[in-house]
């Protein structure tokens, strides 16, 4: 027996704006009960992808399939409901707002009222029912927006960075409630976000989008720590990408570009650690210390290339007293190094980003590690 068709599938989808390709997705399949997160930086084409999935824009090429069949605009719109970054509520009461989608879909007034109340209750905002929407806080308004989308009982919920404008505690609460609600209702969701932690908290699958191109996809646990290329590494939180030449020199063996997270790089006083089999110990130049609250960020340099490392907060005395230009070492567990390919656009945006340049001959991502 063949596997069931995915709920939604984007196949060879291309979207262009003013002659420029802003989205190119060879294939993206969304499973019927899972949450898929599309992770990408601002301007990567995430919102465009979401709008194609919701039939809000038509792709220039390719097709969108629903249950394995090419989907009509009407069928797609009936199957989906969206929550955008800003709540965009109508100038009306909370109750009327939650019933909006139901009324659009021709649900009778009494039934709309019943389902609206149910969803106000489920998202913990029943006490707001009588309030005018413009008096709500950001978090309350986003809950109303979620209730409004859930109320139409979509097969696929489209979430366009719904937490981006919220403060951290509000975001945490809403994220937890959303995860529970998605699980309870067995609703599939497509979340687009730039926040990898948000993606990991909600999603079962991750797709990484860079400059409109779908670069990598897979289960969260497979993608999270195994970036396919440099762009994916950056989006997945690998702050450091060493050029092949530098990686080869540091590791003493032929390497391609190598990514490592700042949280895996520990600074230590020069000469205090001996290189071991398990750790790479690289001499570096201290540049500055940046307090980040729960930790400290250390900006160092190796051969003129910036390397970010992480220390405790407050930092140890030797680090607090360190002078710019002072020699230190940075220790990285070898197991935390990730070989990545090099993007064709890596060199173009190298300036000012601290990104390590790569020569065309160094594209081979092979590494003997």
């Amino acid at each position, binding site marked *: 027996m063949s596997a069931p068709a995915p709920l939604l599938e984007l196949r060879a989808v291309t979207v262009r704006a003013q002659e420029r390709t802003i989205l190119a997705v060879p294939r993206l399949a969304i499973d019927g009960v899972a949450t898929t997160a599309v992770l990408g930086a601002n301007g990567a084409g995430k919102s465009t992808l979401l*709008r194609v999935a*919701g039939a*809000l824009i038509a792709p220039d090429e390719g097709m969108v399939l629903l249950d394995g069949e090419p989907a009509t605009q009407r069928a797609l*719109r*009936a199957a*989906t*409901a*969206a929550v*955008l970054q*800003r709540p*965009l509520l*109508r*100038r009306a009461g909370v109750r009327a707002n939650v019933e*909006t*989608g139901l009324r*659009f*879909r021709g649900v009778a007034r009494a039934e709309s009222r019943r389902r609206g109340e149910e969803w106000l209750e489920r998202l913990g905002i029943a006490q707001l029912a009588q309030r*005018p929407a413009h008096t709500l806080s950001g978090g309350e308004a986003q809950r109303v927006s979620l209730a*409004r*989308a859930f109320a*139409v009982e979509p097969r696929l919920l*489209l979430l366009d960075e719904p937490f981006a404008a919220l403060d951290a505690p509000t975001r945490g609460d809403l994220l937890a409630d959303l995860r529970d609600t998605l699980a309870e209702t067995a609703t599939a969701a497509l979340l687009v976000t730039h926040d990898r932690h948000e993606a990991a908290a909600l999603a079962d699958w991750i797709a990484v989008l860079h400059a409109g191109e779908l670069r990598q996809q897979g289960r969260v646990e497979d993608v999270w720590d195994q970036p396919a290329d440099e762009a994916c590494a950056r989006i997945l939180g690998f702050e450091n990408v060493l050029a092949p030449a530098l990686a080869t020199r540091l590791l003493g063996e032929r390497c391609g570009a190598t990514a490592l997270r700042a949280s895996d790089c520990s600074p230590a006083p020069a000469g205090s650690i001996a290189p071991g089999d398990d750790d790479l110990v690289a001499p570096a130049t201290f540049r500055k210390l940046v307090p980040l609250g729960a930790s400290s960020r250390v900006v160092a340099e190796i051969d003129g290339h910036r390397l970010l490392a992480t220390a405790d907060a407050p930092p140890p005395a030797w680090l607090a007293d360190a002078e710019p230009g002072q020699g230190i070492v940075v220790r990285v567990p070898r197991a935390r190094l990730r070989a990545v390919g090099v993007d064709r656009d890596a060199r173009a945006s190298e300036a000012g980003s601290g990104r390590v340049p790569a020569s065309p001959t160094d594209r081979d991502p092979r590494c003997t590690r």
Partner: protein
Amino acid sequence: MDVLWAALREALALLGRGDPETYEIIGLSLRVSLTATAIAFALGLPLGMMLAFGAFPGRRLGLAAVNTGMGLPPVVVGLFVTVMLWRSGPLGPLELLYSPTAMVVAQSVIALPLVAGISAAALQQIDPDFRVQMRALGAGRARALWTVAVEARLPLLAAVMAGFGAVVSEVGAAMMVGGNITGQTRVLTTAAVLETSKGEFAIAIALGLILLAIAFAVIVVLTLAQQRGRP
């Protein structure tokens, strides 16, 4: 000051003694101006929507034309409508010149750019993603547009008020296409002009005061509708 007091007394007397001619003039003023405003809104709102959201070549030029039209001199409109409705003009066979219908046509033309221009600006004030969000909840194209219009109801009512204000107070076009015929096309503005030319200042000012009172009453009703639910 004496003239003003006399005018106020005259105005109250005109209304108080139930002079049928005065009431006829008031009734026709209201009927012509309200009808013209309604027609201007019925045409101006879709036109405003098209100019606000349409994606066609010349949209910005259209918007500039409509905004220029906001300052259209009523006399020029009156002249064009007269030429169109003149016995030998293209619409001459309809025999509408010097009728209330001709006045409605002229006043609709005067109000249309005002209503369309302010409507377009009002609709563009709404977050462009609002329409996307409504579509993403299942609204069809027309329903989503209507929801945006409802969302912009405050400035849209301002567009209606601007349109009504312009037509109820204009005199040039009403005079030219209506002819100020007693019992047929005489409205408050044209009657006031006539009385002034006769030197009957008290009656002219009285008509002016009545015009102001009527305009105020209509605008109060629209403002109350606009500000409903606000403290």
